[in-house]
């Protein structure tokens, strides 16, 4: 028992050290690129976690995540044009993304499986057109295809944005933990396995799917808005773009769908790929598509799935699950 506890503390100690190092990265005078890598990693991780919650644990392949991050991003950008400070825009963006998720839940959640995927695919496509046509502020020269600059964020440093990204990533991980350990998690699993049976057992399959969808929309929205704060600029065609969906899908599938560790490992690899392939911009997405298909066919549980068969992974698992046994 004692040895188990000491092992446990080593495990969590390692995690704590990594976390503290990550928090301190901006003040440790780390090279700027490092910070950028970790910054993107944290944002992608938050979004991938949410995608995994939907696809992995609920069986809903959502292709409308770009809609949420776009809506939140646009809220921040347009807000700064009408003297709303960026942080208020961030909160407003999160709220709007959540409300929008509830609105589109009505059409798309009447559908299951295959239908759901296409239903959600329509949403960002429609929004792209909307934001091409709609120029709420700024006159003829701004907005639409030309996009919006985000104003008045000169006092916002990279370190600030980094810490915000860190907070979102941590929150996304905690949210997943809480949901999976709660009654909601059980309901999601029952829907994933057999929606009809779940419904006949009195599980309200509509609302139980709406919760993770809305939570996912809010966190994805905030992460997206932080990204656009960093970019300082937003326009419709790159925002409501299937590339974003590809990012989340790939990070989750590489790491391991329906595993908590999957998005973490997958996002690390994805960010690595992202910069590695940046030089080959033209074929980057082609390679990503091939990787996605190959991994899905050869190892549907991703790297975590492969790792599970190794002794080292089982050791790690024991390390972190010991606490649960004690509790």
């Amino acid at each position, binding site marked *: 028992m004692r040895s188990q506890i000491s092992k446990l503390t080593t495990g969590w100690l390692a995690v704590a050290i990594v976390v503290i190092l990550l928090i301190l990265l901006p003040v440790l005078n780390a090279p700027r690129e490092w910070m950028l890598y970790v910054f993107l990693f944290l944002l992608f991780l938050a979004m991938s976690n949410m995608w995994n919650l939907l*696809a992995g644990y609920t*069986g809903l*392949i959502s*292709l409308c995540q770009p809609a949420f991050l776009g809506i939140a991003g646009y809220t921040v950008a347009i807000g700064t044009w009408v003297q709303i400070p960026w942080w208020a825009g961030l909160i407003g963006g999160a709220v709007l993304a959540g409300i929008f998720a509830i609105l*589109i839940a*009505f*059409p*798309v959640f*009447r*559908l299951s*499986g*295959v*239908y759901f*995927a*296409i*239903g959600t*695919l*329509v*949403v960002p*496509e*429609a929004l792209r*057109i*909307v934001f*091409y*046509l709609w120029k709420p502020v700024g006159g003829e020269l701004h907005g639409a295809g030309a996009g919006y600059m985000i104003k008045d964020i000169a006092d916002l440093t990279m370190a600030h944005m980094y810490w915000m990204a860190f907070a979102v990533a941590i929150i996304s991980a905690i949210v997943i933990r809480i949901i999976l350990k709660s009654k909601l998690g059980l309901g999601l699993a029952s829907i994933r396995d057999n929606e009809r049976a779940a419904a006949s057992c009195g599980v309200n399959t509509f609302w139980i799917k709406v919760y993770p969808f809305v939570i996912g929309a809010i966190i994805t929205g905030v992460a997206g808005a932080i990204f656009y704060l960093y970019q300082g600029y937003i326009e419709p065609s790159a925002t409501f773009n*299937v590339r974003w*969906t*590809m990012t989340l*899908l790939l990070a989750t*599938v590489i790491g391991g*769908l329906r595993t908590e560790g999957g998005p973490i490992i997958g996002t690390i690899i994805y960010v690595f790929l992202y910069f590695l392939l940046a030089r080959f911009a*033209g*074929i980057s*997405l*082609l390679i*990503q*598509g*091939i990787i*996605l*298909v190959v991994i*899905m*066919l050869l190892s*549907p549980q991703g790297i975590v799935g492969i790792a599970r068969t190794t002794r080292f992974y089982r050791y790690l698992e024991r390390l972190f699950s010991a606490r649960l046994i004690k509790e």
Partner: protein
Amino acid sequence: MAGDIFSPIVMGILLGGLYALIAMGLSMVFGVMRLINLAHGDFVILGSYIAYALMTFLGMDPIISLVICMPAMFGIGFAVQKYLMGRAFAISAEAPLIIAFGIALVIQNTNQILWTPLSRGLTTQYSMASFHIGPLQFPFSYLLDFIAAVIVMLALREFLSRTYLGKAITAASQNKRAAHLMGINTNLVYGFAFAIAMLSAAIAGVFLGMTFPFTPLSGTQFLIIAFGVVIIGGLGSIFGTLIGGLILGIAQTLAGALLGPATQMLIVYIIVLVILAIRPQGLFGR
């Protein structure tokens, strides 16, 4: 004033033929193996690009290039089903969708690398020509689309109702277990069903290319249109597919005429979402 409405309606009907043609393959694959092929739009555009390549390098007329384009897409379809989709079904419910999404990106980006993101078109003399109804002028390519759609539909119906393979495809979609017991090799039948869907995608791609300019990324737009057609018309009904195409085509051209061309696609997307919300089984579905 009557002409203002008449003209877009005629255009919409003809365009609806093209949409039905695009949707046929999607409907077939869904009907037989319960898969929404997320890459369907990109397969259609792949057909356009194959015809474009043959036209550019060999000077081949797009309609004649179908002689090469159709078998090529048939082969691609069979291989995709056998080596990718067929295996994906055994993995999990999500796997076929994710793999189809991956295939879509591979096709899009291959086209982008080979042909650049610029928009292309299969322009011929006759596709640029026009015909008249009274004082009104209509593009000849739209009429070709409609004729092609009707021919493909009749051919598909004859194939499904008259041949052993066609009957086997229908049977496998209605009762897979019983089909097995009749000695139908369902894996082979699925391969053929997917291949035939891709064959129809090749035809759709060629006629689409003669009607509209296309880019490597056009696939998504036509996937959504095809999906809209299928949910309006109900699954597995060839006639319903035509009706679905007509409704969507007319809605689009009317919206274009009344609200301005920029809103055309937006109206289509909104119709799709509204139908999903009120009648997910389709307007004519059971």
